[in-house]
């Protein structure tokens, strides 16, 4: 049994989990799952991202374990409002909003590094532990190892040599976000060692978007004849990235740089190359030899909605078929798309 009071909640894949670990806490992602009744719309507004609304619903319904604090990232307008609303509905929780720049230029990295130092002070207060540089380095090492293992597992799933691969990978991602990583690492190692079992048929598809944590969604894709050969989701591979371990430079700067330079969510912008996200999608779809691309985003997500026209154009130029799905984090909404997904696969066959 894990000690529940040792948990720190988080809601965004830009959260520096290694710092939470270094404070002696285990990070717990409040995933937009479960069946808490819809209430958040009254506090926020109905036209807000269902990811955030469902996370707030869980908070309002007390459908979360006991937490020592929650770290919110200022990743987008709606996340910022989640932080605001949380204080209202759970005034006794420890919370911190960490400012997150939108690009990885040197000025932004320095600013973010300072924010991470502040976060460390706060975590230290919450835990009563002195967070030494050594502890942070150790945690970075642990999370780098987790990232490495998850990547290895992802490769097997992408190659289609693991039975029920994408379903099980998503289950592992969810565990990695909510359970102590030592246990998760063991499970991953076992899975990596399983014997090869080639998956049957399925049209290779590249999937990108934001929040899609329900493993059942991947079962649905497969039942429609798609095989996800690579995925870029904030509840999936975007959670893992490795941080530089060269101790000669400042640890917070390394963390800041690692987070701001990892595979970007649409909210992060490369000012040198406006519209880069569209090119990234094309590049990744080509890299995994996908026959088609499926975009899945939650409704009302401004960062993604604004970039979809350019993604569509870029894929069209490359002659890659594209299907865009919008959901609300429930299987019901994903299930409604069954006909679309099937027709998309029929079209590509």
């Amino acid at each position, binding site marked *: 049994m894990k000690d529940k009071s040792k948990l720190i909640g988080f809601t965004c894949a830009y959260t520096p989990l290694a710092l939470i670990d270094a404070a002696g806490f285990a990070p717990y992602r409040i995933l937009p799952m479960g069946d808490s009744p819809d209430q958040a719309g009254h506090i926020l*507004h109905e036209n807000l991202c269902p990811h955030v609304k469902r996370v707030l619903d869980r908070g309002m319904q007390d459908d979360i374990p006991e937490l020592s604090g929650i770290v919110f990232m200022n990743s*987008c307008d709606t996340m*910022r*409002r989640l932080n605001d609303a949380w204080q209202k509905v759970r005034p006794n929780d420890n919370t911190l909003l960490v400012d997150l720049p939108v690009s990885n230029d040197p000025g932004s990295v*320095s600013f973010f590094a300072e924010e991470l130092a502040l976060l460390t002070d706060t975590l230290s207060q919450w835990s009563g532990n002195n967070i030494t540089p050594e502890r942070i380095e150790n945690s970075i090492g642990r999370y780098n190892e987790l990232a490495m293992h998850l990547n290895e597992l992802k490769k097997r799933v992408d190659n289609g040599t693991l039975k029920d691969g994408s379903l099980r990978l998503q289950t592992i991602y969810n565990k990695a976000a909510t359970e102590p990583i030592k246990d998760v690492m063991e499970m991953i190692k076992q899975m990596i060692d399983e014997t090869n079992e080639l998956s049957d048929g399925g049209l290779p598809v590249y999937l990108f978007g934001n929040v899609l944590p329900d493993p059942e969604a991947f079962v649905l894709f497969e039942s429609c004849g798609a095989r996800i050969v690579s995925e870029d989701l904030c509840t999936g591979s975007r959670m893992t990235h490795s941080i530089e371990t060269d101790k000669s430079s400042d640890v917070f700067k390394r963390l800041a740089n690692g987070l701001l330079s990892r595979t970007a969510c649409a909210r992060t912008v490369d*000012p040198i190359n406006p*519209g880069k996200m569209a090119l990234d999608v094309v590049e990744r779809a080509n890299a995994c030899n996908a026959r088609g691309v499926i975009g899945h985003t939650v409704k009302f997500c*401004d960062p993604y909605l604004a970039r979809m026209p350019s993604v569509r154009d870029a894929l069209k130029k490359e002659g890659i078929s594209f299907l865009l799905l919008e959901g609300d984090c429930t299987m019901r909404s994903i299930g409604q798309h069954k006909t679309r997904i099937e027709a998309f696969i029929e079209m590509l066959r």
Partner: protein
Amino acid sequence: MILQHFEDQESGIMNAIKKNPESASPRKKLALETARLGKRLYSNADDLVWAGPLVPFDLLNAMEVTPCFAEFIASILVSTDAGPLFFENAEQAGYASDTCGYHRMLMGSALKGMIPTPKLLISAMSPCTGGLAAMENLARVFKKDLFILHIPQKESDHGVRILANHIRNMAESVSSHTGKVLDKDRLRKAMENTNKTRDILSNIYKLAQQVPSPVNGRDLSNFGIVLPLFFGTEVGIEIAQSFYDELKSRIKANRSGVPGERIRLMWLQNRIQFKNNLVKMLEKEFNASIVIDELNVITWDPIDPEDPYIGLARRSISSPLNGTVERRVKQIVKLAEAYKIDGAINPCHWGCRQGTGARGLIDSSMKEIGVPVLNLEVDCVDPRNFAEGQLITRIEAFMEMIESRPSPW
């Protein structure tokens, strides 16, 4: 086409004033200067920079670079005949109707070549992610560079220092994209102008607080958000002064903005930008006046003309459009008290996550001080689904409710 619109507007106002000098009003003065700004934007004569609403425009004005922000141009384009067409363009190009109308209008008109090409685009994560995304898209469409100003959420000395430096870098970037240098004397002069405008504004707002208020529901609409485009210029001072003089003379003549003012209202977020009868209806049927718009507020200290960057940074950070709701709500409550309002109307602009997303939190804080809030569902820019009849019914019911309860003050 759009240039023609501004030219017609300018000559129309000038002719009207010539014919009847009595008809000159501060609102006309503002419209005239807005038309002139529009002319400069669309005549290709000036160096343009597209910027987000929290970018220090006075700095750009000091460089003789014409600034403009997306929401401003969108609100003008929607009043042209082609308005609805631009929305359709945007939607056909894939810009979802779930997104903010200002940004959809901007993209739709840009794709039709109806937005003048800037030398550079400057954006910030505040006030909104959608705005930043729109600027990124514009940079892509125009094939122009994008400069991102990171405005910290928190008002800390450290954050202010970082932003001040960043504003300096921004000025350098503007310089290298336009060839215009930032002259020290002109910068000092611009900051002095900004401070003068600021003083007049703060006096205007003090006058507006009087009971009954000298302002009617239209005088100061869009004021606090549009005027910064003229910060740092003599024109900015003139506009502000004309409003001050007008209000002062109304007070002297014992004339309130809305005759027989009975109900005082606050308008939250932003105004409905296309023609509608709501404000007139409030005046006529209920003697109700919108005495304060949420953004008609000064949250910053005068800027040190010798070292302006710190002051400019502080100003951007302190905007109610930046940061947590807590700060915005505090500001709204303060205004509610200062203006002794009987109720507030929140249009809940469709597609605005940062603003509309605070709906419930504003509600509950206003409840604590006994001020009722009416939440509408309006797209403040896109008139295509505007259901005026339904809105009037809701506003009437709200007014009846206010009339039937004691004033909170």
